[in-house]
Structure formats: C-alpha cells, structure tokens
C-alpha cells in the first residue's frame, strides 16, 4: 500500500463516479443486454474445460516478450497471477455483471497500473484473449458457426466494458500523478535570502501561477518588514514564462514594496519574458529591471551605498 491512496475497487468506483446508472449507460452503449448474459453463461461449462489451456497459451505468449516477461520473473508471482487470470477467465461467463463486478475490474486495473504495465500490453493481452477464445469457440461449435459468432460478440462486448474500466483507472492514476506534481511545483519554497544588511534576494524558479504569485508577495512583504530591507532583488532567471495576470501581480508587488519604503529590482528577465511584457502591454516603466542577478546586486549595492572592493588585484585562482 502506498500512502493513503484509495486501493479498494469500491473507493475507486467512487472517485471515478462509477454508479449503477453509469454502468447501465455503459452497457447500453455497448448494447450489452440480457441475451448477451445468457450467451455468456451458456458457455461457462465450455470455459471451464478450456480455461487451463487458454491461460497456458496466454502466459507462454506473455513470457516470450521481454516487456511483459519482466513482470513475471518471480515464479510465485507468476503462479498467483495465473490463478487470478483463470478466475477472471471463468468470471467472464458467470453472469452477474453488476457494480461489484466493475469494482473488481477497477481494482485489477489499478493493480496493473501500479506495477507499471503499459496500456499497450494490457490491450495486447485482451486481444490475445479474444483470439484464443474465438478459436476455441469455433472448434466447439463446429456444427453451429452462428452460435460461436454470437457468443464471441457477447464476449467482445463484455471485454470492451472491462477494457474501458481498466483504461479509466489508468487515466485516473495519471491525472492524479499530474495533480500531485502540480501541487508539488506550487509548493516549491521560494526562499527570501538576506544578502547584506538591508538587501534581500528572492530567486524564483519554476512556474508562477496566480496563487503562487500571491503567496510570494505576502512572503516578500513580510520579509521586508522582518529584515528591515531597503532593496529587494527578485531574480526570475528560472522562470520560463509569465502571463498577464502574473505580470500585473508583479507590478503590484513592486508598488506595495515601495509603499513600505523598499525598492525592488527585477533581475534575470529573459528575452521571452521581455517580449511577453511588451506584447501584453505591461508598463514596467516604474520598475527597475536588469539583465542578470549580478547586475541586480550591483544596482542594489549602489542604491544602498555599498562599495565592493577587491582586496588584491592579483587574486587569480588557478
């Protein structure tokens, strides 16, 4: 179990909004009806007979590919998943394709996603399954190919329902990862560094959105007060892009700092950001901007009246 992620099929069903109604809709869309249930339960005996050989072929196929083989290195694991697979194989023809069934499918999908099985392999496995079963059906209903065909169609509907569920869990997990990463980016700490007496340096790295900008402003204004700063150099070298809202916010921050008696110098304006600012018409006329952090610090020292002298002119380090 990893963290507090929802693990059970029921919880998954909840987060994915899988309800009775949703299930009915999905079945309707696949035109999966009572006739299909009947057709599938009708071949349960047949499935029992062939389960062993289908599963065997199935894993022979899986293990012959490096991609999928890697997941079944451990013989114990292999045995376990083979049993699970057999169970699933039989489950397909046992009827009762209800909410509990979908929850179970969601759970299995989540497990596959978590071990990192690619969707292409997942789909490939279903494909192999359908083909293997189709062959068996044709053999079994040699005298009645229509029957074989209709059972196969029913099975295809059901497996497509299952595939849909599995892909949902994959998408859900990816979305959750993206969300978590976005949160992590937003929580990137923005340190406010006292550099000299009365001089703060604020390096900003990564993505700035409105929320982070607001947080930054608050932190900056509080730090000006706490450190009795007179000059603040904000280094935005590490910022890839700025939109108009954030740019406006930056202007406001500079103005607010001025109201508190501090001068803000913005350093490291990239050519892209400079162009953006001009294009969206942000007036930076009242804001001191410089190319890089070094110039920013030099400008700040000048404002504060610092003079930095090198003690030895020949202090070259090899």
């Amino acid at each position: 179990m990893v963290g507090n992620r929802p693990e059970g099929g029921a919880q998954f069903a909840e987060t994915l909004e899988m309800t009775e109604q949703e299930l009915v809709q999905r079945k309707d869309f696949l035109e999966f009806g009572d006739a299909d249930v009947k057709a599938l339960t009708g071949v349960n005996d047949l499935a029992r007979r062939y389960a062993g050989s289908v599963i065997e072929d199935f894993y022979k196929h899986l293990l012959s590919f490096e991609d999928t083989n890697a997941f079944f290195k451990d013989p114990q694991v292999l045995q376990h998943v083979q049993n699970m697979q057999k169970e699933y194989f039989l489950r397909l023809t046992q009827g009762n394709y209800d909410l509990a069934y979908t929850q179970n499918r969601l759970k299995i999908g989540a497990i596959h996603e978590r071990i990192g099985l690619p969707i292409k392999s997942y789909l490939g496995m279903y494909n192999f399954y359908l083909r293997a079963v189709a062959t068996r059906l044709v053999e079994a209903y040699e005298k009645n190919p229509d029957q074989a065909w209709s059972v196969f169609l029913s099975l295809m509907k059901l497996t497509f329902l299952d595939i849909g569920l599995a892909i949902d869990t994959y998408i859900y997990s990816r979305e959750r990862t993206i969300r978590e990463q976005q949160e992590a980016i937003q929580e990137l700490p923005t340190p406010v560094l006292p550099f000299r007496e009365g001089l703060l340096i604020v390096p900003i790295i990564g993505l700035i959105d409105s929320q982070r900008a607001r947080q930054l402003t608050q932190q900056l204004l509080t730090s000006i007060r706490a450190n009795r700063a007179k000059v603040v150099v904000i280094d935005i070298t590490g910022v890839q892009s700025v939109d108009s809202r954030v740019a406006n916010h930056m202007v406001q921050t500079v103005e607010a700092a001025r109201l508190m008696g501090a001068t803000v110098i913005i350093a490291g304006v990239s050519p892209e950001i400079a162009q953006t600012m001009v294009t969206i018409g942000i007036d930076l006329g009242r804001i001191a901007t410089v190319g890089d952090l070094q110039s920013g610090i030099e400008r700040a020292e000048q404002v504060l009246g610092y003079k930095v002298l090198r003690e030895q002119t020949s202090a070259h380090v090899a």
Partner: protein
Amino acid sequence: MRAPILRQGKILIATIQGSLSDADLLQLREELATDVRRYRSTGVIIDVTLLDVMDSFAARTLRGITQMVKLLGAISIIVGIQPDVAFAMVQLGLTLEGTTTALDLQDGLDLLHRSQEPSHHAG
C-alpha cells in the same frame, strides 16, 4: 480619535491611530499645515503603523498632506505601511504616487536627517 502630532526639533511626527475618521484626517491636515508654518518644521513624518485599512479617502488625504507640506517647503515621509495594507492599497490602485515612504519611524527619521545633511547620499 484624533491623531496626535509630536514635535522633535524641526521634525513633526503624526501618529495615525487605527480608528481615524474622515473628519479626523481632515483635521490632521489642517493641524499639520498650521504646525509646519508655526514651528518652521523641515520634515513631517506620518506614521500609519497602527492603520489596518487604508481607504481611498485616507490615501488621497495623505497625498494631499504630502503635497501641501512640500508647498510649505518641508519634506514629508509616510512610514509604517503594513504588508497587508500595502498590497491591498496597490490592488485598489492607491499607490501614493509622488510620496516618499519608509519602513518605520526610525528609517523615516534617518531618511529625513540624511536628506537635510549639506552633502547627502544619492538615493
């Protein structure tokens, strides 16, 4: 509540309290004008540390005081704007254009003294 005006040498210090009505503000402007003339002050510091809200009227009046003091030949500095107040002000567009600001009373006094030295620093 009226804002008391303290006098320290050639400098006047007005401390604005948290609950200052519009009438109090106007009275402050009047008193400051009179006092700058009367004491021949060279600098005025308006301390707004206790102010937790700055509305447009207060901001306009403060700007007015600054301009008025300048006309009387003195310098005024607004000190002690709190971080939250500062940000709220710029969001409302109250940027106190043309006024000098400082972090607190001490910085304000430093600034005044420096600007009145015969050869003061640039900036």
